[in-house]
């Protein structure tokens, strides 16, 4: 029971209080580019949930069994026991993410053409989305264990998806409003994101 509670509070924290987009600004580029259309936003949101949910635990395994000091002791080779490859972590994470995205794309193409046609174009974009690499680096910094990594991966993706779909809905409505010329497009989107982020700030008093 305690474990479930712990995971639930971790998920709430990642979705609302420390939203990866609105509190840490990760994934802004694709957020600004894609939130013009609702269908595309839902597609990208789902793709981020999916890829984050896979890559964060996977990078946890890479960290735990390849990178940290003494991680290579499972090979039982004496010389490798004290090797510390921590400085390679960024390269290892981005390589894992790029490879994983490619693999997921091929698997979806083979086994689920429907999912592929709806997520397909977003998958390559995701390899260079900061929120994916960011989530893995947060996992490393906050020293999550396997269970926590899975929960954190999914819920940070969910937080991103929620923010981008909200924004797309607002921008859809915005088409009918008269905005000063220079503010149209990027400017007003920034200010609106600020307002959404202010709304999310109200969660920050909650202590979990």
């Amino acid at each position, binding site marked *: 029971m305690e474990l479930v509670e712990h995971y639930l509070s971790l998920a709430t924290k990642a979705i609302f209080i420390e939203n990866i987009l609105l509190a840490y*600004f*990760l994934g802004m580029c694709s957020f*600004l580019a894609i939130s013009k259309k609702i269908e595309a936003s839902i597609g990208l949101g789902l793709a981020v949930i999916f890829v984050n949910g896979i890559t964060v635990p996977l990078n946890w395994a890479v960290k735990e069994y390849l990178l940290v000091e003494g991680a290579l002791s499972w090979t039982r080779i004496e010389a490798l026991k004290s090797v510390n490859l921590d*400085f390679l972590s960024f390269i290892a994470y981005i390589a894992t993410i790029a490879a994983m995205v490619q693999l997921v794309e091929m698997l979806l193409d083979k086994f689920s053409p429907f999912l592929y046609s709806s997520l397909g174009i977003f998958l390559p974009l995701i390899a260079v989305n900061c929120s994916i690499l960011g989530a893995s680096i947060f996992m490393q910094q906050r020293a999550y264990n396997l269970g926590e990594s899975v929960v954190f991966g999914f819920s940070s993706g969910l937080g991103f998806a929620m923010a981008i779909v909200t924004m797309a809905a607002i921008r859809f409505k915005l088409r009918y409003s008269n905005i000063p010329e220079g503010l149209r497009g990027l400017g007003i*989107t920034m200010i609106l994101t600020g307002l959404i982020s202010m709304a999310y700030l109200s969660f920050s008093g909650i202590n979990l």
Partner: protein
Amino acid sequence: MDKITKSILSDPLIDNNPITKQVLGVCSALAVTVKVENAIVMSLALMFVLASSNSIIAALRKMIPSKVRIIVQLTVIASLVVLIDEILQAYVYDISKQLTVFVALIITNCIVMGRAEAFAMQNNIKESFFDGIGNAAGYGAILIIVSAFRELFGNGSLLDYQIIPKSIYLESGGWYVNNGLMLFPPGAFIILGLIIWIQRIYTGYKEN
């Protein structure tokens, strides 16, 4: 310095600014701008990575097969980022602690990938190098403006030097109170939105 080099250097400063016009690299621009000091260090780090990655990719551009170019670019960029991250940790440890994950996230910073893809793959080493310097300077200019506003109104100081006199603060019998919102994410979004507005009035750029 001939004309082309000059225009490569000066174009990204205002007319074709990476953040406000090309919409690249917004994530880190918002996240590290709580203090001017952090913004300057971040801009210098990005300038190093962007100028070197542009030159290296321009040097390799005829050897990179177009199918795997993204992976090659990512590897070059990630190696440079690891280098600058280690340097920052060695010489300015305090600031690198405050920049947290955002130095590592230069890897997925769209400016670096974007300029490698859009410029360095087609141009020679010298031009690519200056393109890197110019774009990093345009990025740095926005970062420093945003951070100056946030630090001045959020803390009353610039570069840790108190600008707003202590005597007018509420605590010491005056009337002035710092605007705490500036230090939170919404402040960054709204200030950047306003800067984009002003810049677009100045250049006359319209988005449809």
